[in-house]
């Protein structure tokens, strides 16, 4: 249906542009025309600072509640929960978010997001300090970390540039192939990646007198970057670039005809998602304190897809919800059933969620609200505009 809408409006635009003598088409992009008429701003004549007005307009009690919970959580939970469950969920959620952004808003399912994270982690291990002084260059962290991220983002752009030439299942295949190739590279290369054993003792630095791998500081470090990437994605998908990307997802040929450079937009989307994955990769390396081929193997590539699908691809918050479910299951399924069979529980839960709600947990939530909630205007969550 939205496709029809776009078609109608842009045709009207086109006619108007023709009447007015042309030249205005560039400034009246289709998405501008689509923007809903906004309500008059009730705070227009108040003289409060702009950011306060922005917050007041956009915050709901739900946001405040979740925000407070995230801040208070590490003080009420055990260090184990803070570190292993919450922090791991945040980091894996970031990698899944990068995939969710690509798949949900760009229509490109890339299995190489864990590879990008792994490249960042390995780059950090090689440039910074590790247990293998003959390999690691021992740069200080504030040089090593940005360089590692730049390397990973460059690789993400390269991966994107390679895989945008394909569509659908072929994108999945080529990114899987890239990921597996990287796995075998680090497994069998000893001069840089130290092969099967990988590089150990990757510790975050001690800055401002805080050792950043202690559960509490590390939690807030991960929370900060997870929130930053979440809001980055939220901002991007409603910015002109994100709207164009969604247009390309829905109909690349039409967008091309409208003058958008489809390949450039897609590569840019890969690069941006690579940035998020790279930051997660640095945090993951610090979390595990090691980088070994197992962390970038095919199993983890698929796990990231599972996390994104669990939460619901196309919902930025879904990546984190999926990650929480995934980590909780990974950690505690072993207590629920015969120890030798706990993977069965994990698999059944995943299967049930995907079976009953193709849009993940968030889709399930929306469905339940539709069925049992009070009468309300039906709004599509996936196509919501700015």
């Amino acid at each position, binding site marked *: 249906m939205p496709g029809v809408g776009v078609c109608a409006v842009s045709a009207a635009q086109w006619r108007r542009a023709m009447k007015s003598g042309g030249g205005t088409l560039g400034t009246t992009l289709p998405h501008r025309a689509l923007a809903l008429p906004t309500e008059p701003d009730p705070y227009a004549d108040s003289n409060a600072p702009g950011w306060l007005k922005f917050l007041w307009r956009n915050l709901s009690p739900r946001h405040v509640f979740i925000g407070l919970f995230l801040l208070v959580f590490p003080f009420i939970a055990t260090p184990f929960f803070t570190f292993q469950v919450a922090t791991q969920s945040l980091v894996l959620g970031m990698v899944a978010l990068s995939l969710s952004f690509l798949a949900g808003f760009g229509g490109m399912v890339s299995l190489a997001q864990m590879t990008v994270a792994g490249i960042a982690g390995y780059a950090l291990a090689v440039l910074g300090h590790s*247990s293998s002084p003959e390999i690691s260059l021992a740069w200080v962290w504030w040089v090593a970390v940005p360089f590692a991220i730049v390397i990973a983002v460059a690789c993400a752009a390269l991966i994107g540039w390679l895989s945008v030439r394909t569509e659908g299942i072929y994108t999945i295949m080529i990114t899987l192939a890239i990921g597996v190739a990287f796995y075998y590279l680090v*497994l069998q290369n000893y001069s840089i990646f130290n*092969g*099967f*054993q990988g590089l*150990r*003792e990757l510790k975050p630095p001690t800055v401002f007198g805080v050792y950043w791998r202690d559960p509490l500081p590390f939690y807030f470090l991960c929370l900060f970057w997870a929130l930053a990437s979440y809001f980055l994605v939220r901002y991007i998908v409603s910015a002109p670039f994100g709207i164009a990307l969604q247009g390309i997802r829905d109909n690349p040929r039409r967008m091309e005809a409208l003058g958008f450079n489809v390949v450039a937009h897609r590569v840019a989307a890969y690069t941006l998602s690579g940035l998020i994955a790279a930051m997660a990769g640095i945090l993951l390396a610090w979390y*595990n304190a090691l980088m070994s081929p*197992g962390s970038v193997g095919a199993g983890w590539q698929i796990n990231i897809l599972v996390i994104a699908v669990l939460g619901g691809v196309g919902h930025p918050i879904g990546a984190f919800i999926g990650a929480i479910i995934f980590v909780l299951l990974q950690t505690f399924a072993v207590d629920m059933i015969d120890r030798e069979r706990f993977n069965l529980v994990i698999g059944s839960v995943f299967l049930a969620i995907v079976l009953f709600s193709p849009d993940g947990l968030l889709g399930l939530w929306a469905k339940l609200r539709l069925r049992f909630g009070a009468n309300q205007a039906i709004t599509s969550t996936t196509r919501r505009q700015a």
Partner: protein
Amino acid sequence: MKSTKKIWVRSIMGAAAAAALVGSVWAQQGPVKIGLLATLEGPFAAGGADGMRGAELAVKQRNATVAGRRIDIIKGSSDAQPDVAVNAVRKLVEQDKVDIMVGPLSGGEGIAVKDYSKTQPNITFINGGSGAQATTLVSTSPNFFRFNTEGAQWMVGLGTAALAKGYKRTMIIAEDYSFPYSQVQGFMAEYCRMGGKVPQKAWVPLGGKDYSSVIAKIPKDVDALLVILGGADAVNFLNQYEAAGGDKPIMGGSITVSQDVLNYRGKRRDSLVGTLSAGPYADSYNGAEWQAFVADYQKNYPVSAGGYPSPSLFAYVYYVNMKAALDGLAAVNGDLSGGQAKYREALSKLVLKTPNGDVRLDANRQAIGTTFVTEVVKDAQGNLSTKVNSKVDNVAQSLGMSAADFKIGSRDVPACP
């Protein structure tokens, strides 16, 4: 409704408070929780399950009670990846609050868990099956103990036996990771010292299928091949070596000459007779304690219930390590107070009675124990089995070298071309 709810809440809170009080008083006499980690997933899933059996056997032999305290085992699983192993151990230690941790199974995991153990100084970590040398040599942890000998120690004696058979030049074909490095070092340290030569080493990827390029490289003038490959890889290699017309005698690493190799059905089957290998145990060893251990294993885990005909390497090493954990606990009469200082003291001094003789620990809390050199023989029915060729006692991690001479084995260390 409301009042019942209130009563519920109150009684639960009361019970919790009472439990907390009683708990603090009786903590000393409560059960001892032992975390047990093995690989129940991934490439070593079968070995991990047998490791669990070995550890459980040690607990059963004490009726799950030591010095009046019940022993509770809480199991965890990994897939032989170090990050997964550390996550599982962290859950057992920080969430399930185990007092003693036994595990993990493979080398990379062992090093990672050793690193983690430094952050938990009040918990005692005892190795499960992992055999990486570095675990107890490089940046050692004061609360990580290993009562099994490791990869290099397991090969001591093989060099002597090889020279006795007249193998003066040997080519090595081994998988490319830390455990085979240790095994190669254990062999070469002795073999090179006694005049043997290793002109060539071929490092192949783990799980490789095609060995034709390696077989083509085998020099004509070597007397024997030392093949350090895991089960399926070893059989693949033997098949291809036979197809290529190879006829050199073969020696095997500690995990090479297993049942699947002995059940090998190719034409070269008969030439396997006389194959030497070495390891921490020998199926056919006739020591009374070993025979009793095997009988006990077979009784508790018959083949019909998923056990092996004879305990595997992992069952044996997990048994030894779990037995050490329990014997140490008995030595201090179940007293784990004071951050387990007394318990660790007792473990360091423990002379552990294992099915293969006494094991003591060195200054790095690494076992000094016995190694067997075995030889494949053919019995009257034509079945292949192993017999003990020789037995070396008191094998230490330094392999008889001084601390200054000793270097951890790697692809290029040691060398004697």
